[in-house]
């Protein structure tokens, strides 16, 4: 049984991080270059960590499966990044950002982590502005803000609808600088396929070069995973097609605990599915909810009609009706479920009936078409590209889609997993968003972890490792891990199956969406727990992976990833089944208030569930870490 010590420092909430920074161990500058750190992933968390650690003097090796670090999926975040700058003078503060984030997460995150996140949010904006990130500005040259879901202040910084891109390019530029300076050794097209654990500590990884197929061993004094979320377990999601859970899943199989996998975020504003061939769902930024009004027809018989022909009196602006104080800006999970309820009632829009209208006619009347274009032009263009409809003329049709996973590898306050030496940052860890993430908080967390947390906390671990003590890559553990990887490759290529990998991924996605999507039931989850192992068996018997292992082979890459998704999907359902409450992104139909809101059970489930691998075919172990709320009261989340 894994020991889950959160190592949360004692003392008043607002002083914990300062105090912790003063108390943890340091590595002296001359010794830093004697340590090698592996960073896997180069999204916001990975590239900011790699750059910052190299600036400090550590020797960093950065591995990315993309052809360039700039392609990581952080780049697709549209809306913005939160920071408690209070530049708007509207009453924002570190405490308020902390509170909003904790409440937005439905009281399932660690208080101390969330408070630290809010504290460093202000440094992030400073850092990014200094890097030349072209944030939106007011005419006086100062930074502009907009508001986002789940907050009543305007604290979101943005760069048009491409904030993630600009922040990532900022972090990428910092990383590029350190690559140029020799501080970071960059390995592109390199996928981590196993974690090497030596004497209980994470000391290296096994990597496959996706172009040449060469498998190599890399040892280090510490390993950092910043490999993103596992939303593609649903196949259709707003994730990039290549986003995968392989790094965290293989680490899980080496003993790292996976926490709260059932906390998956369904984003309310995505473009609805149009056909079976569909490979991806496209997000329309939450910022659209600032000016767009969401509605469905009041009457079922109007559902298939042209929206323009539906009179104002026959429209149900359901978010404004149910949540008068937050209206269209209520949190994502709340908005998504409300949209689902409307569609379940038969009032959904469009050919499929799975859609609600996001209407800009009021905004166009108020701001003019040019005003709306200035704010959201690129999003309207994206919508037009995909649907061939102009949202200036007719309301957008939107539907919820899987967008983010709050769960991830368990980490302590230092962002270290239960395997010493293995650190996990960004979406890949579980730490800061609880059961639901607020808009514009993912970018904040990724950069907080990479720029401002890990550079301090990794020192505490490394200071306890003797310089030069990392094991050589010819140790038995490395050899065994490499053989493990090569064997898997061989098995896939030799398999006498008939169906392409995508066939199984689609089926897994449908199972997950049906039984473990926006609304979950005990019965559905139990069904899924029967069907997924069967699918897994069928996959291994019948998957066809053409080509060879010593060249670029995208089918082989996908096969490994889908194999992991199937196993992770099972764990996700298991977690959802055992969490007998509803909270944030985890909604169990059996546990709801009469108005359809989440009914938490703080008594029984006010804890983190961290799953521990017990070997193939064995039921994993459910460890728990109690959430001790010292400063805040777990209360009923209300956006009414």
């Amino acid at each position, binding site marked *: 049984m894994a020991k889950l010590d959160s190592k949360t420092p004692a003392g008043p909430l607002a002083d914990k991080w300062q105090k912790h920074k003063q108390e943890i161990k340091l590595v002296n500058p001359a010794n830093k270059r004697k340590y090698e750190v592996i960073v896997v992933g180069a999204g916001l968390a990975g590239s900011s960590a790699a750059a910052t650690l190299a600036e400090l003097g550590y020797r960093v090796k950065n591995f990315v499966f993309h052809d360039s670090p700039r392609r990581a999926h952080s780049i697709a975040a549209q809306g913005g990044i939160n920071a408690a700058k209070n530049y708007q003078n509207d009453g924002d503060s570190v405490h308020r950002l902390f509170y909003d984030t904790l409440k937005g997460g439905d009281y399932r995150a660690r208080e101390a982590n969330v408070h630290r996140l809010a504290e460093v949010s202000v440094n992030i904006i400073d850092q990014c502005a200094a890097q030349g990130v*072209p944030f939106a*500005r007011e005419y006086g040259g100062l930074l502009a803000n907009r508001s986002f879901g789940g907050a009543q202040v305007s604290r979101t910084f943005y760069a048009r609808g491409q904030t993630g891109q600009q922040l990532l390019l900022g972090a990428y530029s910092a990383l590029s600088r350190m690559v140029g300076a020799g501080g970071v050794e960059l390995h592109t097209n390199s996928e981590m396929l196993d974690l090497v654990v030596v004497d209980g500590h994470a000391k290296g990884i096994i990597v496959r070069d996706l172009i040449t197929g060469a498998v190599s061993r890399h040892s280090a004094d510490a390993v950092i995973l910043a490999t993103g979320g596992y939303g593609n377990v649903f196949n259709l999601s707003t994730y990039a097609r290549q986003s995968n859970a392989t790094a965290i899943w293989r680490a899980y199989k080496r003993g790292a605990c996976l926490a709260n996998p059932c906390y998956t975020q369904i984003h309310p504003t995505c473009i609805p599915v149009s056909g079976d061939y569909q490979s991806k769902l496209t997000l329309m930024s939450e910022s659209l909810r600032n000016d767009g009004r969401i509605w469905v027809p009041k009457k079922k018989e109007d559902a298939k009609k042209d929206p323009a022909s539906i009179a104002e009196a026959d429209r149900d602006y359901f978010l404004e009706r149910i949540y008068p104080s937050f209206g269209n800006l209520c949190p994502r999970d709340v908005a998504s479920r409300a949209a689902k309820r409307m569609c379940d009632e038969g009032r959904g829009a469009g050919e499929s009936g799975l859609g609600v209208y996001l209407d800009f006619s009021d905004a166009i009347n108020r701001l003019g078409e040019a005003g709306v274009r200035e704010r959201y032009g690129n999003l309207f263009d994206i919508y037009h590209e995909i649907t061939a409809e102009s949202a200036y003329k007719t309301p957008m049709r939107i539907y919820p889609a899987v967008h983010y996973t709050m769960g991830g590898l368990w980490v302590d306050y230092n962002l270290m997993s239960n395997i010493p030496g293995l650190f996990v940052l960004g979406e890949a860890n579980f730490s800061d968003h609880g059961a639901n993430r607020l808009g514009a908080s993912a970018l904040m967390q990724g950069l907080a972890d990479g720029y401002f947390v890990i550079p301090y906390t990794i020192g505490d671990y490394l200071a306890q490792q003797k310089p030069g003590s990392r094991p050589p890559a010819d140790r038995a553990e490395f050899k065994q891990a490499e053989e493990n990887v090569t064997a898997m490759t061989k098995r896939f290529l030799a398999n006498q199956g008939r169906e392409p990998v995508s066939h199984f991924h689609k089926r897994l996605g449908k199972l997950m969406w049906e039984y473990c999507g926006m609304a979950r039931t005990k019965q559905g989850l139990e069904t899924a727990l029967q069907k997924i192992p069967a699918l897994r068996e069928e996959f291994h018997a019948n998957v066809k992976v053409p080509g060879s292992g010593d060249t670029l082979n995208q089918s082989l890459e996908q096969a490994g990833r889908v194999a992991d998704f199937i196993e992770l999907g099972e764990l996700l359902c298991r977690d959802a089944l055992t969490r007998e409450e509803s909270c944030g992104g985890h909604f169990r139909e059996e546990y709801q208030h009469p108005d359809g809101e989440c009914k938490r059970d703080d008594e029984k489930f006010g804890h983190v569930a961290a799953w521990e691998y017990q070997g193939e075919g064995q039921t994993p172990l459910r460890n728990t870490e109690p959430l001790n709320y010292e400063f805040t009261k777990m209360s009923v989340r209300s956006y009414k």
Partner: protein
Amino acid sequence: MVAPTTKKLFSVTLRVWRQAGPAQPGHFVDYPAANVNPDMSFLELLDVVNDGITKDGGEPIAFAHDCREGICGTCSCTINGKPHGPGQGIATCQLYMRSFADGDTIVVEPFRARAFPIQKDLVTDRSAFDQIQQAGGFISVRTGAAPDANSIPVPKEDADLAMDAAACIGCGACVAACKNASAMLFVAAKVSHLGLMPQGQPERDKRVFAMVQTMDAAGFGNCTNQYECSAVCPKTITHDFIARLNRDYLGALFRAKFKPVSNAAGGGGS
């Protein structure tokens, strides 16, 4: 979760460049595709064709793709001679089959340039762009050393123009479209973005030298001001940034000849 479509389906032929590896010769292969839904994306059609090839015992077409929403810059097909295909201001992944007609033959090739060697089929190595960035595409600011964000006001007009340049997704379509395989639009976008911000001034001259030098060494061609680059740019970045790059470079060159250099430059602290 998917309703049957009322859209009229059609057929096309994909004529795809197949090349087993960097050193092997390549050739075109025809793949017929039926039941194409106009709402399908071009890459989704490639997915479907690839599943068919796999089932038939062949090796699927390797193509680069990731976000499928036009922002990561991974996808990189030249379709009917035009990088990212018909349409304006889109990446390959944002191309939908409604842009084609029944019976069309669609020719699909990789981005072609000496500096972007083909790795397999439609996948090319664009790491030259990363090298250019590593040479100078940054503002040197150590983490934690930044002043308060509002202590450096940036005129809105400059920030907006910088953002226009910064929108570059690094896909390489500019190189692929250029008759000379020149990377000027990419470098111009990077240099302009940072050069337009007050934060970018201290390293401005050094940056433009380093980036142009690395660009030259990577084997790209030279700009002949034909603006094929901006015509295919998925983010419609204007070639006026190339004029800005030229201006920056020449200015830096002349300044470098007259600016005195401290004797102590490069010395360490005591």
